[in-house]
């Protein structure tokens, strides 16, 4: 019935949703996901700095890191996952796995707590993962100018910064579209420039 050849082209993709604690990551995921956001937990030892050392001894596990995620079926054979990252940036171990192979990331920002996302942005820049900044407007209030936010975050003019309402499906959809467009434009520039 289902020979392996029928599904050999099946593949998936992921987008990372990052941001400080309580900024609305799960709300954003839930606004477009076809499933109620799920939570999965990874166990890690207290000494997990060694990214390559997967050889965790379960008895020494001291921490579980939870992350929420949602799913969008793009096509029968292509499924997009949205992974909300653990707010705490000290869990580099988990982050590495999260960003590996990702299309890019959305840094969800609360302008009242801009500093919460400094380390996240540092990490994405270090890993060369394309990202955009989405400013979550609680109660629809746009309290800051885009340029002020850009200056405060010290990010380049190329990085898209936009307002969003994480509760709103259409708004979240626009953020996702913007990210993928941005990644595509970066690839085209790179291809023209390098090859």
């Amino acid at each position, binding site marked *: *019935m*289902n020979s*392996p050849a029928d*599904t050999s082209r*099946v*593949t*998936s*993709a*992921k987008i990372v949703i990052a941001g400080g604690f309580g900024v609305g990551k799960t709300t954003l995921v839930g606004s*477009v996901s076809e499933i109620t956001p*799920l*939570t*999965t*937990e*990874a*166990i890690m030892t207290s000494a997990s700095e060694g990214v390559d050392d*997967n*050889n*965790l*001894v*379960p*008895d020494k*596990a001291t921490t*579980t890191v939870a992350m929420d*995620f949602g*799913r*969008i079926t*793009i*096509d029968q054979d*292509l*499924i*997009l*996952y949205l*992974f909300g990252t653990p707010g705490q940036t000290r869990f580099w171990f988990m982050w590495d*796995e*999260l960003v*590996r*192979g990702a*299309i890019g990331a959305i840094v969800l920002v609360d302008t009242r707590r801009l500093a919460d996302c400094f380390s996240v942005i540092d990490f994405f820049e270090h890993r060369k993962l394309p990202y955009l900044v989405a400013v979550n407007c609680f109660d629809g209030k746009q309290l800051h100018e885009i340029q002020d936010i850009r200056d405060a975050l010290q990010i380049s003019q190329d990085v898209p910064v936009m307002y969003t309402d994480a509760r709103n*499906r259409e708004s979240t*959809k626009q953020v*996702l*579209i913007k990210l*993928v*467009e941005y*990644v*595509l434009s970066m*690839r085209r520039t*790179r*291809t023209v420039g390098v090859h």
Partner: protein
Amino acid sequence: MVLGGDEPTGSLVRPYAVTRGRTRPQLEIALEALVETTARGRSGQFLGGREQKVIVDLCGGRLQSLAEIAARMEVPLGVARVLVADMAADGLLAVHEPTGFDADGGDGSVGTELLERVLSGLRRL
């Protein structure tokens, strides 16, 4: 474990007990890798325990990612990875690893085409 009836819930056992203490999977599986039950898995003859039955049922309908399997079984990701890897090695499951978008990985056009499909899919939402 998400199992109905009178099964105990909560972490009464150490998470890696169901993998007999093994923490390293037979193959690395991405969070978003899609898992599908094979005909051999569906036949139900070769299943080695309660967890395998749950996974075979879970992935017998629509495709499920490793992350979904872990979440729906309420086991840590690492545990789900060991279980799925074992079952894939036994031919009970097929694992579809993500194609990836790495432009430097040689064939950048594959990634670009995939991105364009994601983009048009998002626009249709």
